[in-house]
């Protein structure tokens, strides 16, 4: 595998490859599985089976129109509020009848004048067990938030387990470093290196040592989403040995050392997250 190939493959893929599967939580396995695979969760009442809610959505026996009662989770970009009519392409239309109140776990299908989604899973609304209701959020939202937090914890625990080192540190300096791409391309990563002082080692490092984190300095779209570092930046860093750039070693104080990478933005956490990381590591 050529140098450029290794570089592009590893970094462009890093965000996905490092996303772990979550450990199921007792009694909520199904919901957690749905949450892992969905981006929109809402409660709604079935208006009509076999219909669609806006032009451009192909009508079929599996499409149903649902009136939104409460939006529990959605991407920020998506416009979805109470009272909207949504088309849901369901897996088994025989499970739905007009008037049924249902919680849908879904993914976006067609975005136009309205929203059409494809079902990942569903449950009758009362099955989303209410917990204590805080100000500004409904019991359903709190229950979902709790499930999402458990899922996030499981995913973070998995990332910690997969990391070679986990440190709390501060970026002392940024320098050019790493291999130079063999080909001239607008997608050149422009590798740079952050010299990080380890204030507190959580896994696989020593307090007080310095480490090298390699990252793409390029503004190119191919590197959008890859973590970038600045002098003075502090954080809790989940790092792997560099298998991305094609050059696993770096020079530090005249010695050859391992170079590390942060695979995604999820691996660069605020310094304040260190206690949570330590707690999850001990579980």
């Amino acid at each position, binding site marked *: *595998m*050529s140098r*450029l*190939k*290794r*570089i*592009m*493959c590893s970094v*462009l*893929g*890093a*965000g*996905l*490859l490092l*996303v772990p599967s979550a450990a199921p939580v007792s009694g909520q396995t199904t919901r957690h599985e749905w949450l892992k695979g*969905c*981006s*929109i969760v809402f409660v709604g009442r079935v208006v009509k089976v076999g219909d669609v809610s806006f*032009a*451009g959505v*192909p009508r079929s026996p599996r499409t149903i129109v649902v009136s939104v009662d409460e939006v529990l989770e959605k*991407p*920020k*970009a*998506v*416009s*979805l*509020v109470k009272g*909207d009519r949504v088309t849901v392409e369901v897996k088994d239309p025989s499970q739905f009848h007009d008037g049924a109140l249902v919680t849908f776990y879904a*993914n*976006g*299908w*067609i*975005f*136009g*004048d*309205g*929203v059409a989604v*494809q079902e990942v899973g569903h449950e009758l609304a009362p099955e989303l067990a209410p917990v204590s209701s805080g100000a500004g959020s409904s019991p359903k939202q709190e229950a979902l938030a709790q499930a999402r937090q458990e899922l996030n914890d499981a995913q973070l625990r998995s990332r910690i387990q997969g990391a070679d080192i986990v440190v709390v540190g501060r970026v002392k300096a940024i320098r050019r470093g790493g291999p130079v791409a*063999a*080909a*001239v*391309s*607008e*997608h*050149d990563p*422009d590798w740079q290196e952050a010299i990080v002082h380890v204030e507190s080692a959580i896994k696989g490092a020593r307090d007080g040592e310095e480490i090298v984190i390699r990252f793409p300095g*390029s*503004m*190119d*779209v*191919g*590197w*959008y*989403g890859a973590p970038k570092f600045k002098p003075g930046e502090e954080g809790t860093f989940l790092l792997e040995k560099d298998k991305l750039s094609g050059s696993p070693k770096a020079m530090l104080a005249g010695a050859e050392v391992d170079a590390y990478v942060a695979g995604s933005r999820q691996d660069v956490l605020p310094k304040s997250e260190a206690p949570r990381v330590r707690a999850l590591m001990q579980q």
Partner: protein
Amino acid sequence: MASMSFTALLLLLTVLTGCGTSPPSPTPPTLPSSLPDPVTVVDMIPASLSGEENQDSEPFLSVHPADPRRMAASAFTPNPAGPASGVAPIFVSEDGGTSWTLRSILPSAGPVGTGDITHASTGGKAATLYAGILRIPGSSLLNELMTLDFASAATMSVQASRSQVDQPFVQAARIGINDRVYVGNNDFNAAPRTATVDVSLDAGATWKSVRVESRDTAGQDGPSVRPTVARDGTVYAAYFGWRSFDGRMAISDVVVVRDDGGATTFQALVGSDGLPGRVVARGVSIPWSNGPTLGQERIGSTLSLAVDPNSSATVYVAWGDRVGNGDIYTIHVRRSSDGGRSWSADLRAIVNATNVALAIANNGTVGLLYQQVDGLGSGARWQTRLEQTRDGFITTQSTILASVPADTPEPQFLPYIGDYAYVLAVGEEFRGVFSANNTPDPANFPQGVKYQRRVNPVTKTLEDASGRGVAISIDPFYFSIPVMR
């Protein structure tokens, strides 16, 4: 009346200028409008994504030839569900561009969908779409894709795939009973002669990578390789033959090759050195700047090629380089009327512009789309223009589609508005796409504009479904302009 005025003016100018042999005018005389129908400009972001703040740059457009109401478009637009969804979206219109939906059918899982993407539609009843994408994750992973219906929910199938490839540029046409697909690309596997056209004469069932560079290079060619297909099956391709490169400037030839009748050799044109390919411009200086350089955009490889659909001997090429007279980047347009054997001098030179795209309508009218930075500093604006000409740019009809602030919003990544925009001729229209600052201010769109997403016309701001403010960002815009008669 307008048409008569145009004819009279054209005759007068032809007499005065000696039948088009004069040097290019920086600003050709602008003709009075003879456009019979209104110009259409549509912000393509759907209403249900009114909360989005993405940098939807580098747009592209395909029109279904048998039913031009059906169109597919793309940009660096993320799947709203995020990259974990594993699929990336395209925009689809089924009403001639009045409205657009977003649906995810591309096999790519990047934070902005795919890497580079272009596509072309063919077909009769079926809305076939061929696409070339850099798939994520991947190592500059070219995927050549196909679907028989771009409006369907099915993920496009992969017809061919290989790594180490840059800037796939897809053109396709039905010749006889078969779809012919041409994908220009810069294939690092072929270094040092990297300019390549992938050819399929059987609707993507089989592919052949044709290395179109025949001369020594600086280790590789430039990123842009642009094929274009005439109705009679003649295919041209243009590329930047990099002859030297110092990291900041490429000294490049602009080369055009031709393939006749599906021979798939691209050796129909021979240069004065006896090698395949005619050099349209020799040793031009092309700045390579992978940082914000021109209105926050990077520069380094803008190139377009178009053939007259009814006369395959007539072909136009346009590219960007640095002339050195204080310009950042200058677009040049040249023409051949003898199948690429000889080329004109510059018919048009446009300073500080990029994202050039050419198309030629049935009546021979040439459409030239570009985006130009007008002004300096905080007052600078990105102007998106379509010029039309029927006399080799002696006279033009120029339409400003958008004039937006060039210094806002800040770039999220590069390209800021795109390494390319696109225009094609569809019957009596030029249709195209460009990306620009999406501030809903009518003053920014002299021809008018339609927003699908929610806007507040009083405050000239964007809003989400709840009425909360949404930050200005870069959106893709569709346009349609009547072909000049």
